[in-house]
């Protein structure tokens, strides 16, 4: 647990390693310490850049703490940050993610990775990582196909789980919102949109399937092109159908424009929701009030940033990076803790620190993290399946871009 006292030490450590990162990786290191590289792959530019950077900071913090406290004696963890967003896509780009996966695999010093943020990238990276036996832990990508044994030939040809998650999947996140619509908001009909990405299509599918089971009428389904600017046409159509509610599966690329344009067209009171793709800083910066007001969104993890036990971490994160953590910054920190813990287990057991052993150790690990104990099933999915529901509600007591206080926590979603 972090305390105020060791927080001060950490800040100093963080400052020191930031300078170290600036000077190039591994320029100054105690003699005799072996280097383990941890790949971090996120869309650090593009439509989701802010959220991606918060996730990066969470991972970096875990790595720094491990180095400062000498959690893995004889070894030094070195983060290797890669960007999978490209200018042509304007957001994450699966082709770039595949290239980055090959880079990680090609460097024998890389023994584990954190990321990617996006499922579209995950689908491109998983087969490459699988062939090389390199484990990655995603703090936020929720598309269930990647770890579904039905698609193992596509995403996990080697047969051993390499795609671990510190969040649950859309097999639970999409249905959770459908449960919330049916049981809490009692909507009768819904129109479903997605952003044509792997995550967006997947979560919209699982949402629709559960909505139908719960007796909600799905009035239609359409697809948005994230490069397109105008969604007024589709929104006018939805308005004309008199749908009770709207569900959008997708990330901020199309989401920011959708939420903005929906404001002028759809009734203010009509429930509108998305998944964790909408619970992003861009919802408050690119969209802002009043357009964002009232939108529901979910995350595929317990809500942590307002948990009293997590406050020391939140304070440390803020003082280190001068920005707020969101829940996925915490699941990313948790991913870092899992890797550190797994490598530590290996060393305690006296086993050689290799990629294959690190993978096995992550698979077997039970790690105390900020979200509680993290353990994985045989496919790499986290055992805890909590989905939390939020609503954008203007809170005048905090800055309008405050990602913790402008997203009001409603509670964990009904599970059935």
């Amino acid at each position, binding site marked *: 647990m972090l305390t105020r006292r060791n927080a001060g030490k950490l800040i100093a450590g963080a400052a020191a390693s930031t300078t170290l990162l600036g000077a190039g990786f591994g320029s100054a290191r105690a003699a005799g310490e072996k280097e383990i590289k941890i790949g971090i792959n996120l869309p650090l*530019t*593009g*439509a989701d*850049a*802010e959220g991606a950077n918060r996730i990066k900071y969470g991972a970096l913090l875990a790595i720094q703490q491990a180095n400062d406290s000498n959690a893995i004696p004889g070894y030094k963890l070195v983060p290797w940050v890669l960007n999978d*967003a490209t*200018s042509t896509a*304007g*957001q994450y780009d699966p082709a770039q993610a595949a290239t980055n996966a090959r880079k990680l695999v090609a460097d024998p010093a890389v023994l584990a990775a954190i990321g990617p943020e996006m499922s579209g990238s995950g689908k491109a990276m998983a087969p490459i990582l699988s062939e090389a036996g390199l484990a990655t832990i995603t703090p936020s990508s929720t598309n269930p196909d990647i770890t579904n044994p039905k698609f193992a030939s596509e995403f996990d040809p080697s047969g051993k789980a390499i795609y671990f998650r510190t969040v649950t999947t859309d097999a639970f996140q999409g249905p959770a919102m459908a449960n919330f619509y049916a049981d809490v908001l009692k909507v009768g009909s819904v129109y479903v949109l997605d952003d*044509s990405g792997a995550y967006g299509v997947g979560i919209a599918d699982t949402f629709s399937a559960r909505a139908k089971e719960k007796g909600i009428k799905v009035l239609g389904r*359409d*697809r*948005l*092109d994230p*490069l*397109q*600017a*105008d*969604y*007024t*046409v*589709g929104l*006018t*159509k939805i*308005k*004309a159908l*008199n749908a009770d509610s709207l569900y959008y599966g997708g990330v*901020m690329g199309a989401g*920011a*424009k959708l939420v*903005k*344009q929906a404001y*002028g067209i759809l009734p203010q009171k009509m429930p509108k929701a998305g998944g964790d793709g909408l619970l992003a800083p*861009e919802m408050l*910066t*690119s*969209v*802002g*009030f*009043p*357009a964002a007001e009232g939108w529901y969104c979910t995350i595929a993890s317990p809500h942590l940033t307002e948990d009293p036990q997590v406050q020391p971490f939140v304070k440390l994160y803020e003082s280190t990076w001068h920005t707020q953590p969101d829940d996925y910054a915490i699941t990313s920190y948790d991913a870092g803790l899992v890797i550190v813990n797994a490598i530590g287990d290996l060393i305690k057991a006296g086993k050689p620190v290799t990629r294959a052993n690190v993978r096995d150790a992550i698979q077997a690990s039970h790690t105390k993290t900020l979200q509680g104990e993290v353990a994985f099933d045989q496919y790499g999915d986290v055992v805890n399946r909590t989905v939390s529901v939020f609503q954008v509600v203007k809170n005048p007591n905090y800055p309008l871009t405050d990602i913790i206080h402008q997203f009001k926590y409603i509670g964990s979603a009904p599970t059935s």
Partner: protein
Amino acid sequence: MSETTLVTQQVINGLSLGGMYALLALGFTLVYGIIELINFAHFNVFMIGSFIGMWVLQAFGLSGQSVLLTGLPLIGALLAALVVSMFGSGVLGVAIEKYTLRPLRGATGSAGGTIGMITTIGVSYILFNVILLGFGADTKNFPNPLPTIRFHVEGANLDLRVILIWVVSIVLMVGLWLFVQKSRLGKAMRAVAQDAEAARMMGVDVDRAIIMAFFWGSALAGAAGLIFGLYYNFTSFLIGYTAGLRAFTAAVLGGIGNIPGAMLGGLIIGLIESLGGQFIAVKWTDVIIFAILVFVLVLKPTGLLGTMAPSKS
């Protein structure tokens, strides 16, 4: 919402899109008409025009959706944004012509053809990346100084800003048409379009005519960029791509090189987008637009209003 209301609403949506596409299409057509060059840098001149508009409005203290102006300050801010983004984009267009295309023209006699076109693709990527690297990739919250005033036509909403798009588009398009038809410089431009060599021999300043085509084409793109920002309340480095491609399609559909053709093409593409989205599905928009383009070009290769260009030897 009744069927009539719905169709009226989608026609309003389509005409707003169409107005923007038409303004953009004019830039393609103006340049093509004179030097037979498809100027792909135009996509991102439009994008930069929208950023310039945003900066001007921000300089008036406007940001996000918070500050609403009324009366004279509102008109002043909008006019300033319009003039500065048109002028800035126009100058950018002229600079592109002067520094990247004119040297080519000197060598080959014409900047048209593949070399010029590929150059403009390169320039387009440079502009795109300058904005991306300089100002970041996030969607920018475009200031919205306009009060939300709505009129109702057949039960459909007609926003003040939609009327603004139409008025500005029509004024600029008619102005351009009059300029090209009536003014001395416009006549010089048309002469160069018909036969540059003969025009030069008759004492027409060919370089000046070409610069004018780039200036006004790009200035209209700047106006379209500002209108885009005001209408959608956002801008980003990405907006040039889809809008530019649609506008280019509009220019070809109407008959590239033909000014009324570009306007007509823009409106048609806008309406196809909205009515196709309503009655088929939004995800098929591109398929529908390009299918209609192919269909029209097969039946009439010069586009709707285009005539066979005289072959230039």
